[in-house]
């Protein structure tokens, strides 16, 4: 279990992480989302004892990382798959890991097999690995000590579609069998498929935090019409919030039935009408990534928390 409470990190006058709080419960996969530079990595580095927080706490199973007797046995960490000595073989990297963790050497071969690095790959120097192979090795290194918590920063980076599918399966099962997983990504779709909970961060602040269902549902209705302006006016007239999306559709905080009735009343020809699952989150995400004039988020997302400045 991970508990992050009011975590703040300042570098000089710049605030990289601003009063961030969230929890990752045992048995869940939490997707930690945000554009590059939003504060994901800094939060994870503080969680793993690499950087000290300006204020606030980050606990793993109730204790700070540095206080864990042998951290690798409690938390599996993969912050950067490329941060490996290019001149060492994959097998050697894991062997060093088992030595620190006090585990038998057989674990190395078992683990290499589990992550799909065959004998030939295992005896190659990491410098000759593709990014995907490094991610697999990094994941093997994180899993080495049978930790009950995994902290992974952009683990899907560089993996091919088959590799991503494999990793999702692995993490899902890991959580289902009592593990806690926190994984970050700057791509919503990458974590949507595996996460139970989502924490969205932008500009160092939490922009949204909740179960995937909560965040993806209740986002209203997505409607596409031949003459959208007419429909938008009618809907606004009856008190609904209407937000145009980037590709010309409308996002309405109403049920599809109500939107359909409004369309019928105004005689608008519809080309699409459906529940806008994820559209609100997508919009928030785009807004965090792009500029301040993007469409306002809708639904479960708390609009007071959305940073309006462009993200660094």
């Amino acid at each position: 279990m991970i508990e992050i409470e009011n975590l703040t990190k300042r570098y000089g006058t710049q605030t990289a992480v601003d009063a961030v709080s969230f929890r990752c419960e045992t048995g869940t996969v939490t997707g930690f989302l945000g554009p590059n530079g939003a504060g994901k990595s800094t939060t994870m580095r503080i969680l793993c004892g690499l950087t000290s927080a300006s204020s606030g706490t980050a606990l793993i199973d109730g204790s700070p990382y540095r206080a864990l007797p042998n951290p690798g046995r409690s938390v599996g960490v993969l912050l950067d798959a490329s941060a490996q000595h290019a001149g060492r073989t994959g097998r050697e990297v894991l062997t060093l890991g088992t030595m620190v963790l006090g585990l038998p050497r057989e674990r190395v071969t078992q683990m290499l097999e589990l992550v799909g690095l065959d004998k030939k790959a295992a005896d190659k120097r990491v410098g000759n690995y593709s990014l995907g192979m490094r991610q697999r090795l990094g994941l093997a290194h994180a899993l080495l000590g049978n930790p009950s918590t995994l902290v992974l920063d952009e683990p899907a980076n560089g993996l091919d579609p088959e590799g991503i599918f494999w990793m999702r399966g692995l993490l899902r099962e890991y959580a289902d069998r009592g593990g806690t997983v926190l994984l970050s990504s700057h791509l919503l779709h990458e974590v949507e498929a595996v996460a139970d909970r989502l924490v969205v961060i932008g500009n160092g602040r939490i922009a949204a935090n909740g179960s995937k269902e909560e965040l993806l549902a209740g986002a209203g209705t997505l409607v596409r019409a031949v003459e959208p302006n007419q429909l938008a006016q009618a809907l606004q007239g009856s008190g609904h919030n209407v937000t145009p999306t980037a590709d010309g559709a409308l996002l309405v905080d109403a049920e599809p039935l109500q939107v359909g009735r409004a369309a019928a009343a105004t005689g608008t020809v519809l080309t699409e009408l459906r529940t806008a699952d994820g559209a609100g989150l997508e919009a928030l995400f785009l807004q965090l990534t792009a500029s301040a004039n993007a469409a306002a988020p809708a639904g479960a997302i708390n609009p007071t928390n959305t940073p309006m400045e462009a993200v660094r």
Partner: protein
Amino acid sequence: MSAPTTLPAWAVPGATQDTKVSRPGIARLTWIELRKMGNTRAGRWLLTVVALLSAVMIGGLAYFGEGDRTVQTYIQMAFQPIAILGPVLGILTVTSEWSQRTALTTFTLVPQRGRVIAAKFLAAMALATLTLAVIIPIAALATVFAGAERGAWDLSARVLGELLAYMLLYFACGVGFGLLFGNTPISIVSFFILPNAFILLGLVSALENAQDWLNFSLTTAELGDGGATGDQWLKIFTSSLLWVVLPLVIGTVRTMRREVK
């Protein structure tokens, strides 16, 4: 590269937690750091070159020598080039963590950075001793084939002691420079240039006397013949404060605080 997504029993969360989970001891960490010096391509090459160099030096002396060499002179002659190259391993043990970015893994697994630094220092000391130990059997072999007729096996413990002290000091200096600069090329260049550049300060007359007490290359040059006097040891000590202790202390503080990227 497909792998089954079903977790085997040994890989499930917390599978091995019934075995003892304890903080790795300093001896284990030292052993790991020693292994890390030799398990990279650069480390292996450097070790091989050091070993080859000592063999070539001793072999050459034995072959071209005039038959008046003793095991002690073989050791002394072969020692110099190794004493120059060896400490680079002390530098690399620290700086490669930053250049190869392995510090991220190292300090994640052992967040108490002071323990890692201590282990690296001890590993460098062990390797310094080992380097000297490698020369001795090779020198003995050369003595068997091309030794002097009289006194070939005379080996003074004082000579060995001084050589060991020299090796330990320079390896420690290497680790100190590595910690201080945290960057491979800068550390290596400084390690070779700075002590020599220090001689230039002797040109300033006010600092002339300081040379005797603070110039590391000069003070340690007395080591190796087995004849260093108490006064000379004292000068070695004072110069070591500047060239070994100071870089180690400042470098440790710096490394403890440094942001791991």
